[in-house]
């Protein structure tokens, strides 16, 4: 029986992407702790392996070694679905991303819609985790994560829409092609407001840096993943980094010209830009205190959404000319 070549291509791409994401998650854990160390003028992980290279591996082994504990009269099923659900959509989100002129998994016309559809799934995982662990603190964390993600989904969509409107297509490949090779031809200078809004929403969407309220350690003693230990916590941890990858790669494709670059355009330019965005997000975490919850929502509903809509209008007006 003949298997549709398209299907094999997608399956191979999915496996490649999962490997890419897993490898990157491990590397990002190491990079984050090293960056945190250097910002705080200390070496960061140093003991395990040369300069702490094997530290993430040691952490992973430790997390796998731990006993899988379900909190007393917590809902066992929901409790263990949540981490899996947090990690699942990541591979699908990276599917339509065009890493290089030829290296892309799946060239479909509605790539952007696919990504944004699955990006919203992450909040369901946090909500289930909070509810399933029968812990007052996680409940508060879950409630916060739902409100936060809902509030920041809309400006994200609208800012991405304004870029898609300007380029006239939702296909990531054409979006990359329309941006030239030089930085000033990329969208982040053509449409800076959308870029700013996108970055803020991206950081809020992945619960990072000043917006890490669902797992605000100092208030909610670790928020939704209070009761998780071992691989449950490990999966949430990996999911957070994977989502960061997704968000950074979408940012590079839409605003930083994907694989275009002054020298020979190719997937290496894409990686350089992606890691630059990831580095920026990490630096945010080690500089700013946490935003209060009502300020977080006010920022989105009162500032970002009107701004994004106004930007959309302006872009539409310019496109019409």
């Amino acid at each position, binding site marked *: 029986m003949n298997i549709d070549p398209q299907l094999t291509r997608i399956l191979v791409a999915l496996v490649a992407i999962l490997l890419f994401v897993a490898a990157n998650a491990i590397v990002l854990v190491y990079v984050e702790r090293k*960056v945190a*160390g*250097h*910002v*705080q*003028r*200390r*070496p960061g992980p*140093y003991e395990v392996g040369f300069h702490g290279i094997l530290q993430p591996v040691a952490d992973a082994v430790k997390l796998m070694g731990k006993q899988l504990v379900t909190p007393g009269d917590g809902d066992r099923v929901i409790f263990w679905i949540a981490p899996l659900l947090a990690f699942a959509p990541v591979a699908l989100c990276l599917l339509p991303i065009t890493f290089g002129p030829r290296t892309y998994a799946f060239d479909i016309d509605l790539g952007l819609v696919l990504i944004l559809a699955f990006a919203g799934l992450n909040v369901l995982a946090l909500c289930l985790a909070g509810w399933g662990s029968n812990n007052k603190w996680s409940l508060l964390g879950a409630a916060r994560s739902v409100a936060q993600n809902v509030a920041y989904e809309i400006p994200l969509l609208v800012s991405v829409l304004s870029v898609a409107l300007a380029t006239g297509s939702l296909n990531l490949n054409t979006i990359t092609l329309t941006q030239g090779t030089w930085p000033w031809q990329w969208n982040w200078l053509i449409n800076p407001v959308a870029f700013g809004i996108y970055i803020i929403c991206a950081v809020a969407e992945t619960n990072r840096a000043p917006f890490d309220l669902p797992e605000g350690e100092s208030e909610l003693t670790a928020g939704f993943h209070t009761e998780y230990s071992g691989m449950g916590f490990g999966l949430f941890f990996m999911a957070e980094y994977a989502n960061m990858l997704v968000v950074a790669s979408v940012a590079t494709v839409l605003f930083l010209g994907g694989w275009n670059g002054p020298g020979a355009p190719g997937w290496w330019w894409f990686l350089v830009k992606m890691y630059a965005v990831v580095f920026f997000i990490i*630096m*945010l975490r*080690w*500089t*700013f205190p946490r935003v209060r919850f009502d300020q977080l929502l006010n920022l989105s509903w009162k*500032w970002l959404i009107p701004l994004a809509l106004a930007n959309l209008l302006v872009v539409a007006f310019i496109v019409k000319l």
Partner: protein
Amino acid sequence: MGFIRETGNAARGMWSLAVGLKVTGKYFLSPQITCHYPREVLPNMDTFRGHIELIAKPSNPAKSKCIACGSCARACPSGCITVIKKKAEPAPAPEAAGQQDESIPAGQKKKPPKKTAPKEPSLFALDFTTCSLCGQCVQVCPVSALRFSSAINLAGYTREEFHYDLLQRLAEQAEK
């Protein structure tokens, strides 16, 4: 009008965030200042007060200046010092004692002059688990026979490992 002021605040706010990022960025690139403890040791470890130790006599490094008066044991708030005075030799040399007996008429039986106990501790133990390094013993010692050691890297598996016999420690130091 309020809207203009709001955007003004927001702009200044964004600028302050950028300044914050500049500060951490600057420190990200500046050298580290921490000391890798097992490999490097900070230079000022000798001024740190470890547990107390006996000071040796200038004449004989194996003997301590302590006269076993026990005032440090009494002064210690947590009672972690035990000092036992050395006993006099039990049997004075037989002929010396016997000879004095005849010379004294039987009526006034004077006790033979007991050999005075030497002013030295036979045991000077410190229970470092309850010591709080307050220094009362060092201050109150009449012959200032105690001082703070700079023994800092103390680790042990059982509580007994922190019961120090300071005389033995002094003897070891004497050999070194």
